[in-house]
């Protein structure tokens, strides 16, 4: 279901808005129509689905505030349609608009917009007062909303006695008391200090999950947009330049502007394990014998290998030294050698949460699905590389063709467009077959001499064991 549909909306402030829209349609730029008026929003179309958090992101002057004010009719579009259900806010009557604002769409403001002479409770109850709800009931419902936003016990305070974060909780509670399906949030957390902002973001996500509201959130903070948004619309100079999920915008920016914008984002909070994970290097079936394991590991020059059962459910990993000892001792199966203390994360784990397990793990962090099946791995080096924005190339000292020759420890890797080292490929979860894939080892390397192999193996052992 579509909660909001915006179709080719223009908003021009100024003396001759219609003429400006005509010229914009004919291809004029924002600057060219300046003499006719200020084109705040130009040819904008999008849909917001029920229960979605839709973030509109842009710098000041990009038209995002004007855009959100057209979603509840505070501004009427100069041209185009804004559909809230069946009502077109461009043409709806004043009384119907008031009704919509009471029942369908409420708003949270950047500077809270509370009534300073009313208590927290009466502020939160204000929408219901407007709706003509009786005093007892509206206070009851306001109290519940305040409880939800964590302001229980502050009902009788005045807004001036609260901190910024608490005031915005009142603003949020007020919007929730109205009990509308749609919540518009205009830079709602921008006036708060970073720690409080973070807390409020988490709380908003929590409340959204609990109540299933449709939220349109305006912000200039990309990190906030990426954290909150199911989808993000990036605005620039009145136009939407890209709409997509956080990952889409991060990994495939539509133009240089967006790319530049996302360069500063905290990628580890946005990218998830599934977007950076690689095909596991050596994966051994539990039934395999130590000899086969030893051979596979030798060929792959790996110090350890993951072990899975028949259904690809991850059991753990084996170390090369144990495998070699077992082979010498004539032990037939790997089962007894498997170490189970392997760090696992699921596909949707943000990178920021993989750093700690990765640092403590001997082997790359394993990515598993709900059934514990091994989907891929995230080596430490991948984690680090994923933090580098795609348009920034690292110094490249690897031959352009042939297998990747990255000597671990030399600190040189090539990075492809997705921030993943060349030679690795992001792995579609279903085509991983247990087996050997020497070219795609977690720490892929083909070394020229035995000495290098030894050095590399030693490095692996010291680094991966070193954090223990």
């Amino acid at each position, binding site marked *: 279901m579509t909660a909001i549909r915006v179709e080719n909306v223009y908003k021009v402030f100024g003396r001759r808005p219609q003429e400006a829209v005509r010229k914009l349609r004919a291809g004029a730029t924002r600057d060219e129509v300046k003499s006719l008026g200020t084109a705040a929003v130009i040819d904008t179309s999008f849909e917001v689905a029920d229960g979605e958090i839709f973030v509109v992101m842009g710098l000041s002057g990009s038209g995002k505030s004007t855009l959100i*004010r057209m979603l*509840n009719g*505070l501004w009427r579009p100069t041209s185009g349609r804004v559909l809230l259900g069946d009502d077109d806010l461009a043409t709806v009557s004043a009384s119907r608009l*008031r*009704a*919509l*604002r*009471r029942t369908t769409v*409420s*708003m949270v*403001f*950047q*500077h*809270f*917009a*509370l*009534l*300073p*002479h009313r208590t927290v409770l009466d502020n939160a109850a*204000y*929408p219901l007062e*407007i*709706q003509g709800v009786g005093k007892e009931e509206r206070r009851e419902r306001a109290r519940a909303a305040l409880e939800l936003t964590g302001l229980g016990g502050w009902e009788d305070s*005045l*807004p*001036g*006695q609260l901190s910024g974060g608490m005031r915005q909780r009142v603003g949020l509670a*007020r919007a929730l008391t*109205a009990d509308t399906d749609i919540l*518009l949030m205009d830079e709602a957390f921008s006036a708060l200090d970073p720690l409080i902002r973070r807390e409020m973001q988490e709380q908003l996500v929590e409340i959204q999950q609990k109540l299933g509201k449709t939220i349109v959130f305006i912000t200039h903070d990309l990190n906030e947009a990426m954290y909150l948004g199911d989808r993000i619309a990036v605005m620039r100079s009145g136009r939407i330049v890209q709409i997509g999920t956080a990952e889409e915008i991060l990994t495939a920016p539509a133009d240089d502007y967006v790319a530049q914008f996302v360069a500063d984002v905290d990628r580890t909070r946005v990218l998830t394990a599934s977007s950076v994970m690689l095909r596991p290097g050596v994966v051994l079936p539990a039934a395999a014998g130590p000899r086969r394991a030893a051979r596979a590991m030798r060929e792959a020059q790996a110090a350890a290998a993951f072990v899975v059962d028949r259904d690809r459910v991850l059991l753990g990993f084996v170390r090369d030294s144990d495998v070699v000892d077992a082979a010498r001792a004539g032990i037939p199966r790997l089962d007894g050698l498997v170490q189970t203390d392997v760090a696992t994360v699921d596909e949707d784990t943000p990178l920021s949460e993989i750093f700690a397990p990765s640092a403590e793990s001997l082997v790359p962090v394993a990515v598993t699905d709900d059934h514990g099946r091994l989907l891929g791995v995230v080596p430490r080096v991948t984690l680090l590389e994923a933090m580098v924005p795609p348009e920034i190339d690292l110094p490249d000292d690897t031959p352009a063709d042939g297998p990747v020759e990255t000597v671990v420890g030399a600190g040189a890797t090539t990075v492809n467009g997705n921030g993943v080292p060349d030679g690795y490929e992001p792995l579609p979860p279903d085509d991983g077959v247990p087996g050997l894939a020497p070219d795609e080892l977690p720490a892929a390397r083909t070394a020229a001499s035995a000495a290098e192999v030894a050095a590399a193996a030693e490095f692996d052992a010291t680094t991966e064991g070193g954090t223990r």
Partner: protein
Amino acid sequence: MNDTLVPRLPLGDVVADIVDVVTKSGKDVFAAVKTGFLAAYEPLEILFTTPPAWTIILVIAALAWWVKGWRLGVGSAAGLVLVAAVDQWDNAMATLALVVLASVVAIILAVPLGIWAARSDRVSAVVRPVLDLMQTMPAFVYLIPTVVVFLTGVVPGLVATIIFALAPGVRFTELGIRQVDPEVVEAGHAFGATEGRILRQIQLPLALPTIMAGVNQVIMLSLSMVVIAGLTGAPGLGRDVVAALTRVNVSLGVEAGLSVVILAMILDRVTAALADRAPVARALARS
């Protein structure tokens, strides 16, 4: 006379003619206005002058105490006792009645006009220069047409005072409403409030401290004009001030003048304290 650069423009004559015509054609209206003002003024004057001075002093002191604190209460009482002691009590009460009536009428006219001006740029553009004119025109000049229309006595003084004191009431109301945080007004709209509700529950309460400052100014201007209105025979302290001036009577001048000052100080402090008691002002003071 004829060697000046531009020919003599008979502006004054034209206005005088207009006043003349208005006076004649609006005779009935002015008569009604006069009757109305007298009907309002006389009971008020009786109310203030009939009871013994000490009851009035007590009431005013109690009011001052209530709105501000005991210091203002005691100070007001002391001031009023001084007024009574220099034998200006009746005059002061007549002046007070004039000020109260003129201020109330001025506020009743000014606040709605200020609201209208705040809501419409066009109205504001028309009102503003008119207010400028009203404020800068020498106060005495108002007295002339009002005397022509209403002759002498209480009413011309009242009317001139109301016109003179109107301006700050309108200005402060407009300013107060215009400077209400637009986001709060937007919030009212965003939750589906009607214009009337936004005015009543958001704009007026938030503008109230500023409007009260305007009310204070209206009262102070009324007082100053009421004294000047003594020239046209309005009763009260003004008449004694004028008498002292024409007779070069220093002692009368000092006593009447001092009474005006005391009255002014009490009115100013009490209304200023009232402004601080507006809900928004109190809420801001508590935070």
